[in-house]
């Protein structure tokens, strides 16, 4: 279906090739996963498939890419619209019209399909993606998962043979992600659709994949079955790290397989009475006090009667569905939203009437798009500005940045940094004011495993509140989890208690090792090291 032969790609004004001498074929009905660290060309590889690279982006392409016998060299992306459907990293940016139904019809209109065919196909896709109830809704009013389904739907109306998705679940909560992925799985099995997906959170997709294309840090590319690739790849989901730690002969990809493989091991463990899980109770003074917080937008209540206290040194993860009120809670805490009822005190002060300079010394806030904070023309300029704003010694911020992520040249433009580096820059700008409390909104969106690990190191030692969908991050890092649904707190407790009690939000290791209460590979290794 898709054939890459000796493909190399280089962008203009760049010395390094993005891809070098890449050859592979993908058969009809295959589910292929593209993995690799950020900035190594996963997106470029996906966009080569329908010719967006190089027709749309520029760049020099050597070799040949062909889809269903058509070379992308000879035709424009539009000519492949009926063959390849592509869903970008941020679907909201790709929407052309304002309502669901019109969006689905857009591609068909452009290709001059007769109205009766169009009508039939739109209805079909509305059913296939369970969008029928949302048909006349405005797209911006939909949740992230629903938007993702609309984006996939508007590619599917064209009856493509290949569907290409760039990080389809990075913005979704675990349940919505599961929903989107199982729809993809169904399409592969029922319609023999060929699906190519790039994704960082392997734990979510790995059990669906037939093959993996692994772009390594040195630019070399490996292609093979998940077992072959994951045996020794640097990038791997927790379940594979566990298999390696336990020296299992085969790499298991799903929780079921892994439970089978570890059965004898787990039985042995059950006999040992182990005490795990460092139950961290905040010991310091109460830093955040929230009493009876309620907030409504346009007649609908987004937060209802929330009361909680956060102690110094705690790391609190706020979890919940898309649209459950996580961001609203954070934004009230940092003082962006001021129309709330009830009481919020950060270190004894209400955040909604602080002066800008006082606020940055009290609360550090990293928004969903860290680049919103940055406007300098270079990393160095950004750091000097932060020194001036926060009235610290010149050079403090840059020094902090070098400690967090070594090797960033001060003359680089912030846009040219990788996602992880940009986050580190925003973080050091915020941290240079030495805030008492650090608040982060979905910090790991688009971060690969190594960037995530380095983020965790950067954050240790601070009092942190973060909203996230990333179960594995929470398991690794948080001391306390607050679960929000429909604007109310439904669970609040230590990470172990909350994560283990919910099957959807339990991390992979917990599912494998159940009923033993472990959340991460390190938890298991610690016990294995002492007792076996």
């Amino acid at each position, binding site marked *: 279906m898709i054939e890459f032969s000796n493909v190399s790609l280089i962008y203009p004004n760049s010395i390094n090739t993005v891809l070098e001498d890449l050859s592979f074929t993908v058969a009809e009905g295959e589910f292929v996963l593209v993995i690799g660290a950020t900035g190594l060309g996963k997106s470029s590889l996906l966009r080569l498939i329908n010719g967006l690279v190089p027709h749309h982006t520029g760049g020099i392409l050597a070799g040949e890419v062909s889809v269903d016998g058509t070379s992308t060299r000879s035709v424009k*992306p539009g000519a492949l619209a009926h063959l390849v459907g592509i869903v970008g990293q941020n679907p909201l940016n790709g929407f*052309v*019209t304002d309502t669901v139904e*019109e969006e689905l019809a857009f591609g068909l*209109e452009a290709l001059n399909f007769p109205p009766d065919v169009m009508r039939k196909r739109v209805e079909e896709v509305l059913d296939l993606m369970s969008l029928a109830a949302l048909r006349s809704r*405005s797209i911006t*009013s939909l949740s992230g998962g629903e938007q993702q389904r609309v984006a996939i739907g508007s590619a599917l109306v064209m009856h493509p043979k290949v569907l290409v998705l760039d990080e389809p679940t990075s913005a979704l909560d675990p349940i919505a992600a599961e929903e989107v992925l199982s729809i993809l799985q169904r399409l592969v099995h029922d319609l023999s659709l060929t699906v190519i997906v790039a994704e960082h959170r392997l734990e979510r997709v790995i059990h669906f994949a037939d093959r993996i294309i692994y772009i390594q840090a040195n630019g070399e590319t490996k292609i093979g079955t998940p077992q072959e690739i994951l045996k020794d790849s640097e990038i791997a989901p927790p379940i594979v790290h566990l298999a390696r730690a336990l020296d299992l002969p085969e790499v298991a990809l799903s929780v079921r397989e892994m439970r089978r493989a570890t059965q004898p091991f787990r039985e042995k463990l059950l006999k040992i009475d182990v005490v795990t899980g460092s139950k961290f109770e905040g010991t310091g003074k109460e830093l955040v006090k929230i009493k009876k917080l309620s907030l409504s937008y346009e007649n609908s209540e987004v937060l209802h009667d929330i009361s909680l206290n956060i102690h110094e040194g705690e790391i609190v993860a706020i979890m919940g569905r898309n649209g459950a009120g996580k961001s609203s809670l954070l934004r009230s805490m*940092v003082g962006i939203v001021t129309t709330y009822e009830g009481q919020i005190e950060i270190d004894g002060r209400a955040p909604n009437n602080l002066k800008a300079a006082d606020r940055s010394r009290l609360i550090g806030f990293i*928004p969903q798009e860290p680049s919103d904070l940055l406007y300098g023309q270079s990393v160095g300029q950004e750091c000097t500005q932060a020194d001036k704003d926060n009235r610290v010694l010149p050079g403090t911020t840059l020094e902090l940045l070098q400690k967090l992520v070594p090797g960033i040249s001060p003359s680089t433009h912030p*846009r040219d940094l990788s996602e992880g580096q940009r986050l580190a820059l925003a973080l050091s700008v915020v941290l240079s004011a030495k805030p008492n409390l650090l608040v982060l909104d979905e910090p790991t969106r688009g971060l690969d495993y190594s960037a995530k690990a380095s983020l965790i190191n950067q954050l240790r030692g601070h009092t942190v509140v973060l909203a996230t969908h990333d179960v594995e991050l929470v398991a690794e890092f948080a001391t306390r989890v607050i679960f929000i649904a429909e604007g109310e707190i439904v669970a609040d407790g230590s990470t172990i208690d909350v994560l283990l009690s919910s099957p959807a939000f339990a991390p992979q290791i917990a599912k494998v090792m159940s009923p033993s209460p472990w959340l991460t590979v390190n938890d298991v290794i610690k016990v294995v090291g002492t007792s076996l």
Partner: protein
Amino acid sequence: MRGALHPLTWWVWAGSLAVAIVSARSILLAIIVVTLVALTVHRNGRGTAWSHSFRWALIMGMWVVLIRTAIGVLVGVPIPGRTLFSIPVFPLPTWMAGVRVGGGVTLERLTSTTHESIIIAGVIALIGAATSLSNPHRLLRSLPIMIYEFGVAVVIATTVVPQLVMSITRIRQAQQMRGQSVRGIRQWKKIALPLLEDALSRSLDLAAAMDSRGYGFSRKRSRYRVEKIQSGEYGIACASIFAIFIPIPFVIFSALLPLLVVKSRNQAVFA
């Protein structure tokens, strides 16, 4: 009749009513019409993509009344009549003779400016109502095929505007959190640069998405669901056009008409 009218009908209806209240020059009539229209919007315009427009139009109308009355009272040629109160006159250069800032405020002046501004607010409310009741994008889609391409371009452009507004708010808030003051002209760079980058990457994404979905590839373009005008709608349109010429009886009648004949959207949903 079905719950939804053709967008053109809503626009003819609202447009004619607007012309009628302007030509009738009666506050009472304007208020009655806006009330009836508000009822229609409440019944039929909920849950649509642009359903908030009417509310915004009312708020905007209120500002228009306030600002216009204030300016009308402060600036302008004196109108003789009963003086209510007096404001000190602001000295102006001689070449601006005839214009006066401040001075005595007469009852006649106050009523005439309020009167005019309420009618202007009424017209704004009617346009807002038409937008609430029929998505303006649907109106563009019912254009003749010759200017349809232009319509598509406008649809795309106007879809981006609310997203831009959202980006501006987002960036401003982030900057404030960083401890930056974002007021004042010299601070514009802090917002403009991230916004420009944001808008640029957004439009590149959009162009790529449109390109890969076949936009502009075929010379001809078909249309999904052509809006059809139903026979009953001519009645509403005609009655509203009559209202322009014979205002008093027809304005109220035609403003009432959709309430009487069009099925409520809420009923249609739950039935």
